[in-house]
């Protein structure tokens, strides 16, 4: 069915193109026959007008996109540094829109305004050092500001110092799922290597070295829990190919590289529950559920089961191509109050308990 519709669309597009060509040709009929295939005054005039129309099109598509899709842009940040990133992001965006609006306007306006006419001669204007200096120096100054701002933020995000307050969590990537490891009571992650993965009939999920006492109280889980308001230091590993731990709500991303440990750190500021209640998120979830409801109708008509209602949860996605199921390599993140977190952590089985079974 879709194929038929698609085919019909393509045919219609073909017809439309053919007709536009016809119009171009017919409108040329009236004047003396010119088949040089070099643009004449009429072509210049018409295409000049289209250039101006195209400027309007660019503005309209910009405005329309913001109006129609604006709600999906940058969800509220849920980490401390996320707000810094967003501020810089909006400053950069404001600058981009300013420059974009002006340069596109000049480009297309000139294309219309100075369209060729017979007998008209262009201005011989080859150089102006002052002008060129101005539009070299303005980007220099603007960019210097952006670079400085960016570098300060970057350094403060990426400068990760070990400290007693912080919670160390290992993120472990494999085709095609995630695991997380907590350090347990001693606060130190035990040594680990892929060589140990086959020990204990595959129960050693992330390859902890059983001879390292630090590892015995480690906890390995399939769902990431984070306490609100406490700095988290992630140590990332991968057992097979490159993966990337992407947590868009926390403005966090770092590749997981086999053979080395990479790091990222942030402090969550909003629990899952609080995030669900923000007006933006509530509206988004409502919209998604409406879409899912509509899709379910079609599914039920085909004899399938309906889609579940959606409830917001923070996401950890894989964002580095890693194979067939790359598109479905995810882990749920739960941000909760410190005491709930501690309660949850206490319920998990430690590595020592796992290998004794």
């Amino acid at each position, binding site marked *: 069915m879709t194929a038929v519709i698609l085919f019909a669309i393509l045919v219609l597009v073909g017809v439309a193109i053919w007709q536009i060509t016809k119009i171009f040709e017919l409108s040329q009929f009236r004047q003396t026959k010119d088949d040089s295939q070099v643009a004449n005054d009429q072509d210049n005039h018409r295409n000049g007008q289209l250039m101006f129309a195209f400027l309007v099109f660019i503005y309209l598509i910009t405005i329309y996109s913001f109006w129609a899709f604006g709600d999906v842009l940058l969800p509220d940040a849920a980490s401390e540094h996320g707000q810094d990133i967003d501020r810089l992001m909006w400053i950069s965006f404001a600058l981009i829109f300013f420059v974009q609006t002006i340069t596109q306007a000049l480009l297309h306006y000139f294309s219309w305004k100075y369209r060729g006419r017979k007998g008209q001669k*262009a201005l011989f204007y080859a150089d102006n050092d002052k002008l060129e200096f101005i539009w070299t120096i303005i980007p220099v100054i603007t960019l210097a500001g952006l670079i400085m701002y960016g570098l300060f933020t970057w350094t403060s995000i990426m400068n990760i110092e070990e400290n007693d307050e912080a919670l160390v969590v290992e993120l472990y990537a494999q085709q095609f799922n995630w695991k997380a490891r907590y350090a347990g009571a001693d606060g130190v992650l035990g040594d680990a290597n892929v060589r140990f993965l086959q020990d204990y009939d595959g129960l050693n999920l992330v390859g902890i070295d059983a001879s390292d006492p630090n590892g015995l109280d480690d906890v390995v889980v399939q769902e990431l829990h984070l306490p609100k308001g406490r700095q988290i230091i992630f140590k990332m590993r991968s057992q097979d190919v490159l993966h990337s731990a992407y947590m868009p709500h926390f403005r966090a991303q770092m590749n997981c590289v086999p053979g080395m440990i990479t790091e990222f750190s942030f402090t969550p500021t909003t629990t899952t529950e609080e995030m669900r209640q923000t007006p933006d998120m509530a509206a988004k979830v409502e919209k998604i559920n409406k879409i899912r409801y509509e899709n379910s109708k079609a599914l039920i008509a085909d004899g399938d089961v309906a889609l579940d209602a959606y409830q917001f949860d923070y996401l950890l996605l894989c964002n580095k191509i890693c194979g067939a199921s790359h598109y479905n390599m995810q882990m749920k993140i739960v941000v909760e109050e410190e005491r709930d977190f501690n309660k949850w952590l206490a319920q998990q089985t430690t590595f020592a308990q796992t290998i004794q079974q």
Partner: protein
Amino acid sequence: MGADHAHHKETFITKYIFSQDHKMIAKQYLITGLIMGIIGIAMSLLFRLQLAWPEKSFWVFETFLGKWAPEGVMDPNVYLALVTIHGTLMVFFVLTAGLSGTFSNLLIPLQIGARDMASGLLNMISYWLFFLSSVIMIASLFVESGPAAAGWTIYPPLSALPQAQPGSGLGMTLWLVSMAIFIASSLLGSLNYIVTVINLRTKGMSMTRLPLTIWAFFVTAIIGVVSFPVLLSAALMLIMDRSFGTSFFLSDIFIQGEVLHYQGGSPVLYEHLFWFLGHPEVYIVLLPALGITSEVLATNARKPIFGYRAMVASILAIAFLSTIVWGHHMFISGMNPFLGSVFTFTTLLIAIPSAVKAFNYITTLWKGNLQMNPGMLFSIGLVSTFISGGLTGIILGDSTLDINVHDTYFVVAHFHLVMGISALYGLFAGVYHWFPKMFGRMMNKNLGYVHFWVTAICAYGVFFPMHFIGMAGLPRRYYSNTAFPYFDDLANINVIITIFALIAGAAQLVFLYNFIASIFYGKKAVQNPWKSNTLEWTTPVEHIHGNWPGEIPHVERWAYDYSKPGHDEDFIPQNVPLAEGEEELQH
């Protein structure tokens, strides 16, 4: 060797196949590039269908993908293979070989006043190596386990281990072999361009009188010679890792239930090597397009290009900077964050020469007498997409902001606009403008107008909304978004994008028809249809060996004396001597 063009008898084979004439080689490059382009674009339409209507059955999938689309539903591995080969074909085969290969070959000897390239033989070998690599790349589509599918950047270990995905088997081997041959071809071509520009300029053609096209091709060739060998070494090391048990890029790997022997290598090393070519490659693609635009814009505006010196300086600055910014693809690869700071700094510096170029183009239009030929439209379109796409580079080049949008659709939108669409526009501008020189006939202008306007609208229609889904956090290279209900509200945007993409694809058929039909039935071209100043338009319409029947013309002035006061015509070809008392512009 140029001057001797003794009339030895030409057979079909020496004239059309193993030709050493730069004009014929240019046409060979163009046609091979266009065929690869058709395949690359067709692939993008296939995976756009999948993205708009995920996991739906389409008869086109069944027809083209066969057993890889059981009952017409695309397999995830095939999706990855399609995006990989689409990227490879478009970046290397269409926009590097197809664009640079065509126009460097055609224009360097013609515009500098040379009888041919410095070495016709190397030039011919360069083309045939390119052809061979194309054949191998296409052959890889037909192997049992499928073509390479690790993304066009083929990061190991995914690309190194056949256990990781089926495409990393024979398909990847063929990909690597094809690219190694491609690089050899590119190096031979580039060396030839460099030598030709330096040694074979006609009398009077000083470097400061070179048309900007030649400057762009010349500098592009230098970047290619500097950076392509590094990719070759990366490819060779990857072949070693794959087939001979070395561990350059691999360490501590457990896959499919077994621990592999690799120890001590690092995938990050591969990323460095790849992007040391990969980023300059962006400019290898873009600079020729900008060079073509400079020429087409000035000719059709009937005005000198504004700020010739600044344009040359910015080409040189971009070329230099392009070799020290590769790390901005690796901000979150795990490399030292301090390197991230350095690369942010160098990357954002590129915005300066780029801005100068954009402003100079706009000023070139100011108070011009714009002749809206199809080539001109594509050149204006290039400036537009170059600005739109380039500006978002301010976000991606900033390590802080890159954290959140890295590898999302925001990146896809950015690079498609700034290098994909812009370079394609450059290619189209070049084809429309120099078609009379290549084939002695004119292309139909009305079909050209339709081609441009439909393409221009669709290009923004496709890539503008992509910024939004990227900012929403949607990663690229996802076979479908259905695994995340969180992205359900982006589904309708994906449908819009796909519809624009299909229309854009259809518009390219208009171009193809125009191109082929005009070769045979186009109106016969006059010697200088666009009233241009450069030397290629002083050669006869019918191609001859050695380009000029008599002596090579001498160059008396720069290439941009359009609408010069005190002259009746609004153009003065470069070989016309300065009139009594006329001064050459000091540039």
